[in-house]
């Protein structure tokens, strides 16, 4: 495999490890979405070589994180989750905007 592909895929590992290490029962939903987003970003980056559209990776990763926080807010009504959902949605929109104008 091309080393560039491994570098590209490994960018998602810190996020994956962070959510796995900080996994807590009371924040299980957000952690599960976080781990899933990291796994998605890692495998999608590898799959670019087989035709997966590379421009989808960052927006989809942050979209999954935003969904996780929104889901957690709907379950627990915690303000913190709502702020996170807003922040991840903003980054999700920002990555789309950057890619449109990049």
């Amino acid at each position, binding site marked *: 495999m*091309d*080393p*560039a*592909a491994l*570098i*590209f895929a*490994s*960018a*998602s590992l*810190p*996020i994956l*490890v*962070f959510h796995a290490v*900080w996994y807590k029962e009371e924040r299980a939903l957000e952690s599960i979405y976080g781990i899933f987003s990291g796994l998605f970003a890692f495998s999608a*980056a590898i799959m*670019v*070589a*087989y*035709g997966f*559209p*590379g*421009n989808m*990776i960052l927006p989809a990763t942050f979209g999954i994180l935003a969904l996780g926080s929104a889901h957690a807010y709907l379950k627990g009504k915690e303000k913190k989750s709502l702020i996170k959902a807003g922040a991840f949605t903003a980054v999700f929109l920002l990555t789309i905007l950057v*890619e449109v*104008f*990049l």
Partner: protein
Amino acid sequence: MNRKKVATAVMVYLIAGGVYLAFFSYPVAPAFASADSYALQKEEVIYTTPYAVYRLYVRESEQPAILIVATVRTPFLPSKTYSRTLGMVQDIMEREVKERYGVDIDVVFRKEMSARIGGHDTVMQDYDIHLKYLDGMPIGIRPDTVKMDIGAYFCQERYESVIVAYVYPPVYSGDFERVMASISC
């Protein structure tokens, strides 16, 4: 504890951003052309983030055919990166044409066309380059117009975008398909 977690989260996303930057700066394996009688004359790095390099091939004669194959590190083909590199490649090509033919030039867009470059279906822009010779000699057997075709494709297996510019006089118009097919990333 909470502050520690926020700081760790910020650090994690900074590290992820840094790794993405490392990806874009990682040197490319330059795409190449293997068509007979086209000799590699130059290889030069255009910029390092995203890493971009071009190779210049020439079929030497009184009326040379010139091929530039540029390679840019990207996980897809962003339109602005494409436009920027395409503009640079076009500038380099126009400079080469002026030097090698000893001319001033007028570049006129003709049409878009499809071509198969190294196994990838690609949209190419087709230009006429009108030559104004600086030595004052009559045109005679020299061409007054050469063709320039420019196109790009995403080489997914190498996480690179390849931009191709090809200038050829009428005498080498038969080379087009062979040269495009010989390009690999």
